[in-house]
């Protein structure tokens, strides 16, 4: 299914109400990924599509290739500029589903990764930029930072021309700190009938935040402390096992 344009240029005529819970993700010591709940109302004759996009960043990666015709190894680097840190796409299942596969979702020129690809700048000696971008998506999918899935959105009652929806999304444990946009599109007859966006913020908290602050702001002291703790742990273990026989 093809849409008529990028959401920012669409005049959404129908109202879309959304609520995102929680609106802040605190990554403390026990953080292992988290579920966020997106709910709201869309026009009853439309379908909901939810997109989560992270802040844009630059990424420098190693590129593997063949040396001497048969050895696979790192043969250079590739830079990706202005790529989203996270890209997640969810849509409802059923006869009216507007994506019928993950591949179709990725290739959507307005809502999928094709839309993002326009703003991404790839710097590499390797000429096939399409192939590089595909490899980049694979790498991000492996860590759960890019993904697409159908069937996560559930609809409830219809009331006065609107229907309520809810969706539970899983954000991965490797989520970078930053601000994330949760976008909801109400799609109808090949066009976007409604749109709303909410921001959520992810940040480290508690002990992880303290350690990160020490590591980045007082690197040498942090390194010395890390070494001291390691030496003390080694010595303590030695004391625990002190009852052993000496030299033979």
């Amino acid at each position, binding site marked *: 299914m093809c849409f008529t344009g990028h959401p920012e240029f669409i005049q959404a005529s129908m109202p879309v109400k959304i609520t995102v819970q929680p609106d802040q993700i605190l990554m403390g010591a*026990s953080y292992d990924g988290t579920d966020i709940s997106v709910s709201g109302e869309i026009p009853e004759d439309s379908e909901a599509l939810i997109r989560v996009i992270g802040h844009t960043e630059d990424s420098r990666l*190693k590129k593997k290739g063949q040396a001497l015709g048969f050895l696979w190894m790192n043969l250079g680097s590739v830079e990706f500029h202005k790529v989203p840190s996270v890209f997640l796409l969810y849509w409802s299942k059923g006869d009216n589903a507007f994506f019928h596969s993950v591949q179709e979702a990725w290739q959507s020129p307005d809502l999928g990764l094709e839309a993002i690809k326009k703003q991404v700048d790839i710097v590499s000696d390797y000429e096939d930029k399409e192939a590089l971008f595909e490899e980049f998506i694979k790498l991000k999918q492996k860590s759960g930072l890019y993904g697409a899935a159908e069937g996560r959105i559930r609809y409830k009652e219809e009331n006065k021309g609107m229907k309520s929806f809810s969706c539970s999304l899983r954000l991965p444990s490797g989520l970078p700190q930053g601000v994330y946009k949760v976008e909801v599109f109400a799609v109808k007859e090949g066009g976007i009938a409604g749109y709303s966006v909410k921001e959520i913020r992810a940040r480290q908290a508690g002990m992880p935040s303290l350690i*990160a602050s020490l590591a980045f702001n007082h690197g040498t002291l942090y*390194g010395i402390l890390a070494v001291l703790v*390691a030496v003390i742990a080694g010595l303590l273990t030695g004391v625990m096992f002190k009852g*052993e026989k000496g030299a033979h």
Partner: protein
Amino acid sequence: MWHLYLPIAGNSVNVLLIFIMGGIVGFLSGIFGVGGGFLMTPLLIMVGIPPTVAAASDSNQIVGASTSGTLAHYRLGNVDFKMGILLLIGGVIGGTIGVQIIKVLRHMGNADFLIQVTYVIMLGFVGIYMFAESLQGLKGAKAVDFVQKKESRYAMIVKKLPWQTHFEKSGVELSIIMPLVLGAFVGILAAIMGVGGGFIMVPVMVYLLRMPMHVVVGTSLFQILFTCIDVTIMQARTNHTVDFLLALILLVGSTLGAQFGAKISKRLKGDQLKIILASLVLVVMVKMLLGLLLRPHILLAYIGGH
């Protein structure tokens, strides 16, 4: 319930899994006198730790394991401090030269190719030689004749060098130039390959310095301890890639593992230790070779690691 979020790695891990990984590598460290970096870093990358953080945090944990191992071997009379300090001085000089070599190679664009190929060749050479030699040693008399014949020529060359010193713990007499030069050689290779150098240092001590295997293990751990202290502080200061929480879980496991490894090491003969280490090195070499020959699933990778 068993998960802990690591702030520098930027990911969460299963504490029990990391503890067990630390224990296994610490155990191997206690038996063979290797730091275990060539095993631990790839394992950490497999569980989702970024390569640069895996390598730097692993150095931190090796400090703990090698402290524990050195202490255990010291009690068993297996640490030659005199030899260890000379090897360390050579290692620091060699490491500095090695870093410069890498800079030149990176500028020429050949660094990664050289590093990968050096790794496989060194692992293969060390593993095969050690395996063959220790197998002959386990078989008995023939091996002794072979070694003695070779030893006399080598011993003649070594005896002619100046500044001969007796190393009491190792029971050898040789020039101080030997550990300085060999330490520097290992330091250069370690800098190129990005490892602590234990799996190169151990064969160098056994075959070129003629130290008994049990003293090699303890002395190697002593030398690795200081190498990794330096690497940990440098990585924390320059790259901010040491994840202290990760290193803490690993070193709790590895310090315990190293103690048990030292006990097992006591029960095994020198040739038995050598042949097991050789087998381990060959397994790692085969894994690396397969990594070079088989097409990877993803043609992009994060920068860092070994």
